[in-house]
């Protein structure tokens, strides 16, 4: 029960005004079935509430779902909010993100982006590698 066989802890949230949470629920279930502990915050979270949860839950990864075209504003904003308090936790964005925006998100420090076509394997391996736990079940 020591070291790498501990479950990866992931905080999942919708940030701001965006009511589309079906995708996030599906992702939560994928990660659960991959053996991770998913702290599910749900809809209408603020940067403050997410930062508090990531801190209190000692999370390995933060997953944010975005379907409101706000990713270029909100993505960098949440990365900056974590940075500001010195929380070194990778941010994975899922949802509708045009390819043209990927480089800007990457430059802003977003660890990875998962689109609508992502398979279970892709979702799980992306979160695992963001957590620095490649190859570990």
């Amino acid at each position: 029960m020591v070291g790498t066989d501990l479950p990866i802890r992931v905080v999942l949230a919708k940030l701001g005004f965006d009511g589309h949470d079906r995708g996030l629920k599906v992702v939560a279930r994928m990660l659960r079935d991959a053996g991770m502990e998913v702290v599910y915050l749900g809809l209408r979270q603020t940067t403050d509430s997410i930062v508090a949860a990531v801190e209190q839950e000692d999370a390995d990864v933060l997953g944010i779902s975005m379907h409101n075209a706000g990713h270029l504003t909100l993505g960098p904003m949440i990365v900056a909010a974590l940075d500001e308090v010195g929380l070194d936790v990778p941010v994975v964005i899922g949802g509708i993100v045009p390819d043209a925006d990927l480089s800007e998100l990457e430059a802003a420090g977003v660890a990875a982006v998962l689109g609508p076509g992502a398979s279970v394997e892709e979702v799980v391996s992306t979160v695992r590698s963001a957590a620095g736990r490649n190859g570990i079940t």
Partner: protein
Amino acid sequence: MESPEPGAGLSAVVELAEASHSGDRRATARLLSLVERGGAPADEAASATQVHVGGAHVVGITGAPGSGKSTITNSLTTLLSEAGQRPAVLAVDPSSPLTGGAILGDRVRMNGASDAGVFIRSMATRGHAGGLALAVPGAVRVLDAAGFDPVVIETVGVGQVEVDVTDAADTTIVVVAPGWGDAVQANKAGLLEVADLFVVNKADRPGATDARRDLELMLDLSTVTGRAGFERPSITMTTATEGDGIGELATAVASHLDLLSQGVELDRRREKRRTAEVRAHLEHLLAGAADEMLASEGLQPVRASESPMMVARRLAGQLLD
């Protein structure tokens, strides 16, 4: 703050414990992770925080899935926080027996408490039965040592027999919702016997007064049968989503602590808690040893002609040798 890795040694963990005690929430969160790891890291976290453990009021909230435990926890801790207290929450949800994964969803109902500055930590049961995680008592001490009081433990959604929370808490609140059962259900052994306080939540829904009546009748019979050490629990009607009845519940919780503190009951319960915790860890260690034994190559195959109970007794003899 750097996170000490498991086995990083006591001095790093002591630093963490001091930071946690002086209000560094990240340090508190890291200590909780160490406690959850078990083994040497948990021992170090326990030793390092012990000096600051101050005897916070530990309140358990239990009840069936969907009865409103998280919403009550949210409203209650928000109220206490606004009244100047420093509550913390340990919210337990089940781990999958198949993959070990878990969806810890209690925070969904706790936005108010989070905004009010309540420290909330979600915990998965990680294979432990009884409605709690094995690490809960250790986690409670970490939160106590960090200066949080009260510490509210929200159990997994329980059925009838998951009563571990009564060992872990000073005050146990059992939540029921309208339609949960009838007067016969109310008199079945188990969960309802161990309540210090009852809450009938969703009191705005039909059937709430029936639920209260069934509980009152059950409690009347407990008085008649003269159950040892029985203090008649109060019943609070709440509509937690609206905050209705939460002030009354907060008063009932405080009164119960007063009642416990008047005599030796609080000390008795806490002594019992320590024994229960030792027992839980002992069970865990023995179960691990049993698993190892059953998986070992030297084990003779169990013959169909042998009684499983006899085999178990023989192996237990070897195990405890």
